[in-house]
């Protein structure tokens, strides 16, 4: 019994030592990005920088580990294609300088008078769009969010985005729980467009589906546009 335990322990120690040696022997070089051409198999600090920059551009899904593997090469190829460079998956001087430029300085500061972009607001708007207007044309989705924002700006409704969305009976997607479905990319983009000021409804406060509307009151509104299944008005 005792002997067996010793065997197990010594095997474990051996494995630990071997793996430790192989880990530390992979010494990383310390070149900075642009000093050499990078290709599959290259390792080093500059590869890390390359990966981080590709990651910033949203085109590198892999880990930032300093190892130039096939995923790094694929991201480099995508970048080269977008910039009209030779698509070879090798980060040479041209590719690297284009990449350094893509991540260059920020634009100048000035008041741009846009609304505050609160990430919670974006998320909630995307949810209401997805719950109310999945499968509707894209401008119909922007229009739903625009109606929410127009209500926030109007004294007849609550003054916050959650206030408007959760007002009892205001949106059927809230009453039946469809607001809690996970919003798709289109809904997220439409929410951002509406927050950035795009309003296909020209200031509408209501929308409804004439095929299913039950409230008699809604028919007294003025009706402005039809987009997809909905009509928009005030």
């Amino acid at each position, binding site marked *: 019994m005792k002997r067996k335990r010793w065997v197990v322990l010594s095997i474990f120690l051996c494995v630990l030592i071997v793996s430790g040696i192989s880990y530390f022997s992979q010494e990383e070089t310390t070149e900075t990005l642009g000093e050499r051409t990078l290709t599959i198999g290259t390792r080093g600090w500059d590869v890390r920088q390359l990966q981080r920059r590709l990651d*910033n551009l949203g085109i590198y899904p892999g880990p930032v580990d300093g190892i130039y593997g096939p995923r790094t090469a694929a991201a480099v190829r995508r*970048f080269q294609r977008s910039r009209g460079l030779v698509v070879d998956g090798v980060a040479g001087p041209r590719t690297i300088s284009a990449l350094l430029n893509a991540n260059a300085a920020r634009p100048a500061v*000035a*008041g*741009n008078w846009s609304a505050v972009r609160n990430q919670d607001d974006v998320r909630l708007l995307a949810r209401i769009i997805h719950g109310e207007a999945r499968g509707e044309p894209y401008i119909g989705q922007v229009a739903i969010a625009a109606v929410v924002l127009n209500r926030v700006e109007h004294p007849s409704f609550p003054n916050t985005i959650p206030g408007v969305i959760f007002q009892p009976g205001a949106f059927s997607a809230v009453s039946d729980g469809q607001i809690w479905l996970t919003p798709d990319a289109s809904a997220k983009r439409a929410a951002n467009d509406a927050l950035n*000021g795009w309003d296909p409804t020209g*200031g509408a406060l209501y929308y409804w589906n004439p*095929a299913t509307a039950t409230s008699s009151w809604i028919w007294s509104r003025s009706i*402005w546009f039809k987009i997809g299944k909905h009509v928009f008005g005030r």
Partner: protein
Amino acid sequence: MRNKWYYITLSALVVALFAVGYWGFQQQKDKNEILLQRENSLQQAFYELTSDLQQLEVTISKAMVASTPMQRREVLANMWRQANTAQQNLAKLPLSKEPLVNTQKYLNQLADYSFTLLKGERKSDSESKQIAGLYKRARLLTDQLMKFEASLADREYPWIKMAAKEERNFSSATRKLPTNTFSEIEDQMQQFPQLVYDGPFADENLLKKPRQLEGPEITEGQAIAVAKKFLNLQGQPVRYKVIDREEQIKEMADDLQNPDSRERLRRQLKNGGPPLETYLINVIPHNREVGNQSYISITKKGGRVMWVVNTRNIDGRYFSLQDAQAKAVKFMDSIGMENFKPTGVLRTLNQAVVSFAAIKDNVIIYPDLVKVKVALDNGEIIGYEARNYIFANHDREIPETKLSLEEAQKALEPNFKVKTSRKAIIPLSTGKEVMTYEFYGSINGLNYLVYVNADTGQEEKILRVVKNEDGVLTI
């Protein structure tokens, strides 16, 4: 033998029955607990609403008598706060199938009006008369609410029943609930004269119209020509579909199954159209997939482009914000808007939105706001938004300023370190415009834009400037 099986089956059935019964009992218990919690939170909102309104009635009555500045400010601040919380609580309650737009508006305007008055030093002439009118409405609202409260007194779970009625249109069991009290209040609220003041919620500021939109009415053909030129599509294989808003709604009515709805939808068209008539044109490329379409909205009067939306997917981000800004500037030049300067750029998802403001005589005119959207995968312009510009733009005389830059700078907090400054016309929340000096600077490591009125030396607006990797936000 048969007896044995009989007893086994019977006892199994009895056990099953008890199990199902117990399960059903638990389900019922859970459901009741959830309903009770819902009832409780609605009751809380209702009791807070009645208490808010009672306090508000007293506060408005005090506002009628308060005369010296300190007391007047205190009363107005209370009025602002109480009207605001009353409005929030009212919006939580399922009081009617229709939104209580008039009651909500009364409370919101009351708060907004109090806030507007708070900015003035002395009592204005119209103030006493208008506050007396507001008081009458507050009395009416509290009286009705007290009656309503009394009618709820010995009902079990009135609020969840009302919620069910309003959300699912329950009929028989809940018909006797007194929710029509609120339809009455709604009608009464509408009969009072409009509150006249200068705030963002004032009636005259609600339905915005273009200040100065000139030019003749254009035809559909001319609108298509505008779209073609604007989107630079000469000779491109695309199709233009003009979407006529009335035609679309009539077609929709024709397709409705229910003859009543059909009639009502047709009749509804006579209730009036949008404040600004536009052509909506759908631009459909011949050789690309359906998702890759654009919509462009053009004013009938003057043929100005209001907005453009391209619906294609954008995957990947290969362009920097700086590249995007350069693309947007080039685009603005190409459509003949060279007198606009970029004022900021912001990235959301894989797109960048570049804001522009007009420049005249070295003064930046923020009300003339235009936004250009750039796809970060190929640098293409995929959106344009000029509603603010079209509504605010007019022939402006850049006024002489009473104060010099140095004089205006004296208004600033002494520790505020100014980095840059310039003249700027800014929009106020009421839609009015004011000539200011813009100071960009920092204090305690935070950055700000401070706008000082160029005539009175008062600070008109303060914006926090936050820089992050997605661009520059002004809050």
